């Protein structure tokens, strides 16, 4: 299912889309595939695969740790593409989130081509703003990859408009000024940001990320956003588990809880 179809379907069901994030190759390539498929089966509408990067400045301690583990276990860019292929073949809608340098190194057009071939529908670029994205925009158009750029509470209306004009699929609204990681309470800045985005473009689906960790928070965010993006809390299920089986069990349980949350808007 494309991103647009996924959001349209959720809208028809009067609920939000649940986007679950997991670093590729964490803790190993095979395990990450298993985890992502478990998340998909337990109710994540979109699997956001994060390409592990040595210098993830947008990410908090949990994703950093998971990325470090993946890199230490030798995950390569081509493994990430393989993982995307496996997870999308299992029926999941997959988007990739990656810092920019690995794509620039791979070759921007070649990456868009191979990403599309692997079955990903979109790319989220946390450190690539549209101002610097001419080459990516062209490559994404050529290979029909949706482009998700970020907006933040600090973004001016002018920048929100410019960013929306360059997004396709959905826009990623960072709910708070800070890095990724579950918070005790949902940011109060998020609803206002969503309102500002809607005032500029009522059609663009809005995914809200940063800080959501349980079903209750998912429901709170689903009340005003089209999509709820959860990363660190899911990753912690694996990081903190005593063994592989309980990690997967926890991951399924949290995914189901979040999926229920996005239906309780």
């Amino acid at each position, binding site marked *: 299912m494309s991103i647009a179809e996924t959001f349209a379907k959720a809208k028809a069901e009067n609920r939000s889309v649940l986007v679950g994030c997991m670093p590729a190759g964490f803790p190993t390539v095979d395990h990450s595939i298993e985890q992502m498929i478990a998340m998909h089966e337990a109710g994540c509408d979109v699997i956001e695969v994060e390409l592990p*990067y*040595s*210098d*993830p*400045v*947008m990410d*908090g*301690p949990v994703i*950093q740790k998971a990325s*470090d583990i993946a*890199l230490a276990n030798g995950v*390569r*860019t081509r493994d990430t593409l393989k993982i995307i292929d496996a997870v999308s073949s299992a029926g999941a809608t997959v988007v990739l989130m990656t810092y*920019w*340098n*690995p*794509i*620039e*190194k*791979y070759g921007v057009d070649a990456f868009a081509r191979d990403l599309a071939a692997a079955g990903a529908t979109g790319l989220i670029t*946390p*450190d*690539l*703003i549209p*101002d*610097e994205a001419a080459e990516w925009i062209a490559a994404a158009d050529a290979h029909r990859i949706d482009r998700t*750029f*970020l*907006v*933040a*509470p*600090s*973004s*001016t209306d002018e*920048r929100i408009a410019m*960013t929306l004009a360059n997004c396709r699929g959905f826009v990623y609204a*960072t709910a708070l*000024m*800070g*890095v990724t990681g579950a918070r005790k309470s949902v940011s109060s800045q998020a609803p206002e940001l969503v309102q500002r985005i809607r005032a500029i473009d009522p059609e663009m689906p809005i995914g809200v990320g940063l800080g959501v960790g349980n079903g209750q928070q998912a429901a709170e965010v689903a009340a005003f956003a089209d999509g709820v993006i959860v990363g660190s809390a899911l990753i912690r299920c694996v990081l903190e588990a005593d063994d592989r089986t309980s990690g997967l069990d926890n991951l399924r349980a949290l995914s189901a809880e979040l999926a229920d949350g996005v239906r309780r808007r």
Partner: protein
Amino acid sequence: MSAPTLPDLAGHFGRYGGRFVPEALIKALDELDAAYRSAKQDPEFQAQFQDLLLNYAGVPSLLYRATRLSEALGAEILLKREDLNHTGAHKVRNVLGQALLAKRMGKPRVIAETGAGQHGVASATAAALLDLECVVYMGETDTQRQALNVARMRMLGATVVPVTNGSRTLKDALNEALRDWVSTVETTHYLLGTAAGPHPFPELVRDFVGGIGVEARAQCLEQLGRLPDAVAACVGGGSNAIGIFHAFVPDEGVRLYGFEAGGDGVETGRHAASITGGSVGVLHGNRTYLLQDDDGQTIESHSISAGLDYPGVGPEHAWLHDTGRAVYEPVTDAEAMAAFQLLCRTEGIIPAIESSHALAGAAKIAPRLREELGRTPTIVINLSGRGDKDVHTAGAYFGILDQVETVVPGENT
């Protein structure tokens, strides 16, 4: 050649520079850019900055004719004595400029990243002087290697946060400072330590340290009645180098040489030579040369000099390299340490190990220039910092620490 007009309004030096950061930081960068542009035009700000440089930092630094070193190298060597500045390096110029800018923007808190601790100490100094809260991020490995600088920062009232992520060195400290900034941008100025990072940092840091070259150029004209044949500087992130190069860029007869940290030798893979041993990519907010693997993951750098031990380089250097206006070459640890010792013994000056790379580089280019010019070449070397902080490293390197190491606190009788 139109370097003085670069970067463009979006911070590009040709294909280099720009802004590769989360959107959350763009507003702060725009505000910084606007504040900087207005400060640049404001005579009062400029007067304040110049006053601090003159009466606090001890600038302009001397341009010293190093007679005995000149004899040893077979070139007329002039040392730009940035080591004599307050806090012992060129970095004081940058921190005073940025701390004044933070005040002007009404931001009560500054954060900084530091490797060896020099930029951290300089930031803590400026913060103490201008009554700003100061938090310094430093890789845990570096806090252990540079315990004295950690103490210095704390004496000056700064909070030092050891960073335990990744390689626990400078690049991870920089990541952590960026993460802090994303969360605190309303009240905090990021006092970036080199002429790199997202626009406008490469430009504003260059301008704050640009006095080095302006002074050196005027001092050459005054002392020699002409410009030098070459200007040499060490390059890590590249702030001291761009500081001395910039004023000379339009002078086509003046050759510009940047000496990168070659570590064990570029061919060994253990080095910090981003231009001569790296490739083009994006790191820490700008497109530039960096050390990276085939997947674009940053590779850890290696240098005996903590100040040059960084896997990237400022974007203007990338551009000067591509256009051929400046030439970049690696200098190994061993070459730098030989030059360190030579300056100690010929001039009675203990240089920073960073600056020793520039000395070693000058020693390499002297015979080449002599042949090319058919006369004794005149070379200005940026002696960017003093070596007090490196006494332990150099003492260990030269094996002269035995007496010091036998002293165990508490066991003196």
